[in-house]
Every structure is written in structure tokens, then in C-alpha cells.
């Protein structure tokens, strides 16, 4: 039994590491396939002459063949050194650590608010199935599919910061968290509502009622755990979308998070910083997926028996 758990967690860790390494690998070559590197940008802005450009290239190691560059970078990365930013000349790891708290607050805030909002709405719609709550669920779902968050973000800046002047234009978390949480809520509420409606008609709910359990007991012992199993299976997709959303929100609202950092790094062809930023996104998604997997194994005994 114990060895089984050890083997399984080893396999899982190996699988997670493999996906992260694969993503890092792809990003490394993709970013270098975009035309122009950082020295070209300096030349374009007139800060550098052609002869200086060559020297700077070789100083930064950009003149080497791309495979050689990969070898150097991967050796360093393996030793825990993510390199220095080409533009700011500071450690990429330190910059990432500075930016991380902003991103985590935004993500966690949006996730918690969004899940609670979506869950509450689904429950209300289920309790009053013919009423306006159900239409609210539909509306929010359409909203989250049809309205891109960057677009809403720009409109929100225009309305609340420029016209009404209630909030600062840059650097506040309230609007991005609300926008992202509406997105999350829309993605959760509809499948959860449908699942809840389906479960209330299942045999075991009838059995529970026949046993003489109260409504509340039936809801939290029988209906909610079964519905949660479904939502958790969606968590991976929802979180992936959310990570994409934080990236654009950080850009629109000028937040110094990982997304904003990565965006400026891409524009400035700051290779090590891009690499670190995107690898972080990959790590976050992979870990959240794994957590979702573990949660569904914990909830559903049938899944435990498969592997």
C-alpha cells in the first residue's frame, strides 16, 4: 500500500516536471524565432551603432548558435540560476519574486470570489429553478464566453477611472478582480447548475429522502459532494483561462505582476525574463491541474480504483 503511494507520487512528480521542461524548451526556441533581438531595438532607437551592436551581441552571448545558447541556459537553469535580465541587468529570479505577490493576490482573489459567486448563483438557480436566478446563470455564462476580459478592462478604465474618477487608472486591484471573478463565475455557474439539477433527480437523493433526512442534510451530504466532483474536473480549464486573464488584466491596469513583466519582456526581447515568466505560468497551470486531480481522487472513490 505504502510503496504504491510512493511510486504513484514519483510518477506524478516526474510527469509534472516533464511538462514544465517541455514548455520551457518550446518557449526558448519560439521567442528566439521572433525577428529582431534586444540589440536591434537599441539600434532602432539610435542608442547603439552597428559596430557596438556586434560587440553587445557577443557580450550577451546572442551571437552563438541557438542550440549552444540553449545548452548554456539549461545548464544554468538546472543549477537554479535563471539568468539576468538583458535590459535591467538584475537577477530574473528576484524580479519574478517581486512580481509574484501581485499576481497571486489577483489570481487568488478572482478565483475565490468567482467560485463563491458562481456557486451561490448555481445554488439559488437550483433552489428556484423557474425564476430569475436561472436567467442570471445563463447571462453570466454568455458574458464569460462572449466578452473578452481585456475589452471589459479597457471599458472599466474609461468609465470608472476617467469619466467617474472613482478609482486610479493604474495599480488598483478592485476592478481586475471583479472582472476576472465574473469570468470564473460564468464558467462555473452553468455546469454546476446543470449538474445540481441532474443530481436532485438521481436515485440516491430519493433514497436519502426516503430515509427521512432533512433537506439540508440531503444537500450537503449527497448533492454537493457529487456536484463538486464535476466542478473540480473543470478546474483545470477554468484556471488556465484565469491565468490568461490575469496576464491581460495586469497589462491593462498596469500592475507589476508576472503577466505585465512578461509582456514588457516580450516587447523588449528580454529573453531570460520571457523564459522565466512563461515558465512560471506553466508551473502554475501544471500544479493547479495536479491539485484538481488529487482533489477528484479524494472525493471520488471510483477514480481511486482505476489506477
Amino acid at each position, binding site marked *: 500500500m505504502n510503496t504504491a503511494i510512493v511510486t504513484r507520487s514519483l510518477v506524478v512528480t516526474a510527469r509534472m516536471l516533464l511538462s514544465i521542461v517541455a514548455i520551457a524548451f518550446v518557449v526558448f526556441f519560439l521567442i528566439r524565432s521572433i525577428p529582431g533581438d534586444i540589440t536591434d531595438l537599441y539600434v532602432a532607437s539610435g542608442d547603439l551603432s552597428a559596430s557596438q551592436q556586434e560587440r553587445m551581441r557577443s557580450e550577451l552571448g546572442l551571437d552563438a548558435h541557438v542550440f549552444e545558447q540553449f545548452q548554456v541556459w539549461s545548464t544554468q537553469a538546472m543549477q537554479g540560476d535563471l539568468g539576468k535580465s538583458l535590459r535591467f541587468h538584475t537577477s530574473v529570479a528576484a524580479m519574478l519574486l517581486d512580481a509574484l505577490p501581485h499576481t497571486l493576490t489577483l489570481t487568488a482573489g478572482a478565483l475565490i470570489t468567482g467560485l463563491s459567486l458562481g456557486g451561490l448563483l448555481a445554488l439559488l438557480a437550483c433552489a428556484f429553478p423557474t425564476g430569475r436566478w436561472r436567467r442570471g446563470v445563463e447571462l453570466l455564462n454568455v458574458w464569460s464566453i462572449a466578452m473578452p476580459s481585456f475589452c471589459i478592462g479597457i471599458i472599466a478604465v474609461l468609465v470608472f477611472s476617467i469619466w467617474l474618477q472613482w478609482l486610479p487608472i493604474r495599480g488598483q486591484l478592485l476592478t481586475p478582480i471583479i472582472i476576472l471573478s465574473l469570468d470564473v463565475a460564468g464558467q462555473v455557474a452553468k455546469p454546476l447548475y446543470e449538474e445540481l439539477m441532474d443530481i436532485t433527480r438521481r436515485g440516491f437523493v430519493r433514497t436519502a429522502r*426516503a430515509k427521512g433526512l432533512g433537506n439540508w442534510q440531503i444537500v450537503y451530504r449527497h448533492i454537493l459532494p457529487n456536484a463538486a466532483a464535476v466542478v473540480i474536473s473543470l478546474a483545470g480549464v477554468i484556471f488556465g483561462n484565469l491565468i490568461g486573464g490575469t496576464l491581460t488584466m495586469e497589462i491593462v491596469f498596469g500592475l507589476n505582476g508576472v503577466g505585465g513583466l512578461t509582456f514588457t519582456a516580450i516587447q523588449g526581447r528580454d529573453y531570460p525574463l520571457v523564459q522565466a515568466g512563461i515558465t512560471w505560468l506553466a508551473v502554475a497551470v501544471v500544479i493547479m491541474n495536479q491539485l484538481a486531480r488529487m482533489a477528484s481522487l479524494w472525493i471520488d472513490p471510483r477514480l481511486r480504483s482505476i489506477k
Partner: protein
Amino acid sequence: MTPLLTVQNLQIRAGARTLVTGVDLALNEGEFLAVIGESGSGKSLTSMACCGLLPFELTAHGAIRFAQHDVLALTPSEWRSLRRNGVAAIFQDPMSSLNPLMTVSAQLAEAINGTTRLDLASADAARNLLREVGLHDTERMLNAYSYQLSGGQQQRVLIAMALATNPRLLIADEPTTALDASTQAQVIELLQRLRQQRGMAILMVTHDLSIVRSVADTIAVFHHGRCVEQGKASAVITHPQHVYTRALVGASMQGVDLPLRKPAQAPHTVLHARNVAFRYPNAVRMALQGVKLSLKAGECLGIVGESGSGKSTLAKILVGAMQADSGTVEVCGLSPRDRWRSTRRNLAFARKCQYIFQDTTGSLNPSHTVARTLQEALLRSGDTITPTDRLSELMTEVGLDPELLSRRPDGLSGGQRQRVVIARALAVNPEVLVCDEPVSALDAHLQKQIVNLLVRLLGSRRMAMVFIGHDLALMSKFCDRLAVMDQGVIVEQGVTADMLGAPQSTALQTLMDHSFSDRAGSARKRALLSCAA
């Protein structure tokens, strides 16, 4: 004596539609009432109204009295206390009636003390209940989840939960329909024993007269939302008054009248299997082991066994839906393994061998019309006649009105759907037809019709058939040979009459005992025995 339960002029409505009307029933303390009828006759709705479990969009009118309570006027909290002390219920599909995420002990605890934990006293109570319903391996049962139990065990757990509240009335809504013949008989025996030991009354809803005829005190027959006849069981069975009751009693007494078939001339072997073995991934036990079979042209081979004996697994391997771990299967010179190699070989195999499933709803695409379903099959047959002509021909051949071609599966009845499935299988003119429990989900009338159709086709089409089922009484009527499966092994096979005349294995004996348990059955059994001798 005032009856324990009385139903007077009950009417059940869904909005403006009336589903049940003018129903009167009475059930005395300790009595067994069987409510019989076909699906949609309102029998289940009536029983659900008696325990307050009607779907919320339906309303009940009239009067239902249980002991001193006016059932239809109870508040939710009064209902809860009545269910914890008086009325209990068990349902049709035991698998879905148990919460898949909770252990048996947690679900039993809910019934015993309202929590999900068994304390010392309630753990004893739980073990006693499990033993009372015949689950003696109590520790394993308590820790098990529903998916780890067989259908029979699940239904026993549900019965144990129902008994936890010491009910005076147990409402059982088709409790055996989803179970195989011998498990059915065991569950009925169990209910009968519990009724005698505990003196509780049972209201059992079923579509199968034969399983309750020996245990029911009174019978109520439902037809089109009305109770058309009720009375002492013996009276209803021996002197049925209503036309429908007569048809029902007739169907279960005579079984099936089948057209005679001539054995094929100079038969050649169309299917043979040697040493087939299969194990499901991560399973401990082999699902199939050393299976050896052969089928001649024009012959009908019946494979019988309890659920879980490996019948369906074998069927899937014969038609190539799954691959055996070892052993060889050959159908008309083709190996089912070839299906996995290329589309062309898959098609070649499909033209020789077709498969009919038990679940008629799941095996038809809900968004395709009957015409489209059949056309798809015909186009694969390499037929030279234009498909449009063949469509109505096929429909007539399986006894369907060609007008139904434009319908979708949800516009067809269960029996019609099974006929469409048969027509689809016939479209390619197969030489071998493998049917996996094709009639188990249908009621007695439809079973008779579908089996009749299959047997008639067998004669007119000169194809061979493998018929998988658990109803030995039915299968003994038309299968030339039988193979009995138990725990993944064929324990016995041979010519039907010889085998029933002198059963060698305990598996066959058990099946015979349960299948021929009613009076007419034993007469048939005696007749078979004498003809074998």
C-alpha cells in the same frame, strides 16, 4: 380490522394531464400487495404518492391514509418523522439508488442515527441489519462503496437501510427489475422472509407477474393509469376478469409460442472460439478462461449464466468490440481481431457478423431518424438495389410500419427501438447475429414479440445466432444448444433438451430452479425431462 394503508380515489396530475385516476387500494398490517402493470400504467407513481416521493412537478389528489395519518396533508417535517418511523422504500435501480461517493457504513448510519458515523451501538445495529438481509461479510460490506458491490448486494444494502427504521410498511418499486433471474428470486425470498419475521406490510410494484405470484396476498392490476382489477392473488390469477389481466396471466403462464424451425442441411461451422481468456485491467479474477464454443450455420446457441459470469464479455470478444488476451476466435473465416487492423477488414467482418445490444436507447443515435440509421447500415452492405426501396422492405421484415422511418429514437417505444436495432443488424445480411440480452429490458409481452421475430428471421434468413440471456425458461424454447457460464468458465454445453434433462453443473441446476419456479414452469420442466428421457 382497519387497513394499514388505504388509497381512495387517487388522482395524479402533471399540470393539466392526468396520469393516474380513480385508484382505490387497501393494504392490511403484514400483508403483501403486488401492484402489476406495464410501464406507464401509473403503478410506480401510485406507490411513490404513498411514500411522498412524487417528483415535484406532479400533484396527488384524493385520499391516502397510513395508520392515523392523512398522507397527502403531511408537512415536510411530519413526512420526515413518518419515514424515520413507519414507511420505508426501496427502488428499481440499486446502483443509482446508492450514493457513489459514500461508504455503505456512512449510508447505513444515516438511516440508523441520522449522522454519517456509526457509534458503538449503531455499529452493532448495522451489522445485525446486514446479516438480516443475508450479507454476512459485514466488515467488508461496511467499508465498501456501491461500485464494489454486485447488483444483488446493492439491493440488499438498500433493504437493510429501509429496515433500519423498523417500518410497518415497505414500498418496493420494481426492486428486482435490474437484477438477473436467480438474484431476483433471492431478493423476493428475502423480502418474503423479512415480512414474516417482522410482520411488516409490503407494497411491491412490478411488471412481472411470475415473480410475485407465489408471495403476494393480494394483487392490483394497473392499466393506462387505472386500477383495472384487484383481489386475492389466487383469485386474480385463476379467474382474471379484465381483458388486460387475462393477457398478462396468459403471457406468464404459456411463455412463448414459437414458430417451428427446420434444422439446416449439411451445416458448416460459422463461428468457433478456442481457449479464449480475458482479464479486465487491474481485476484479480479472470473474466473469461479457456472458453471453447462453436456455432453451425442456421443454428441458435444460447449462452446462459448469472450476471457477472462473463457472458457479455464473451459476446464483445466474439464480435471484436474487445480483444481477448489469448485464444483464437474465427467468424466465417475472419478473425475479430482484424477489425482493429484496417477499415476494410473491419467492414468485411461487419458484413458477416452483427451485434444487438440490451440497451436500445444507448445503441441508437438520438439525433438520427430511423431512415438515416438504416441507410447508413445499408450503404455498408454493398447492396446493389437502391437503399430507398430496401428501407421499407427492412422495416416490414422486422414488423414495423415504414411510416416510422421519419421518426427519431425518442419517438419510438422500447419494443420499436429494439426492432430498429434488429433491422439495422439485418441490413448487411450477416451470417452470424450475436444478441446480448436483447429482451431483458422489455416486459413479458414485448419479450415474446421480439423473440418471435428473431426466431422467425433465423428461419427465413438462414443465419446463425448466439443468444445471451439469463431467462432459461425462455431460451430453452428456441435455442438448439446451450452453454452455461459461471465465473468466466463454460461449465457445461450441449443440446438443450439433453442438458435440461440431466443438468451436470450446479450453475445450471440453480438457473433451472429459479427459471422454472412457477407452476407452469415446473410442468414445462417435467415435460422437458420426460421428453429427454
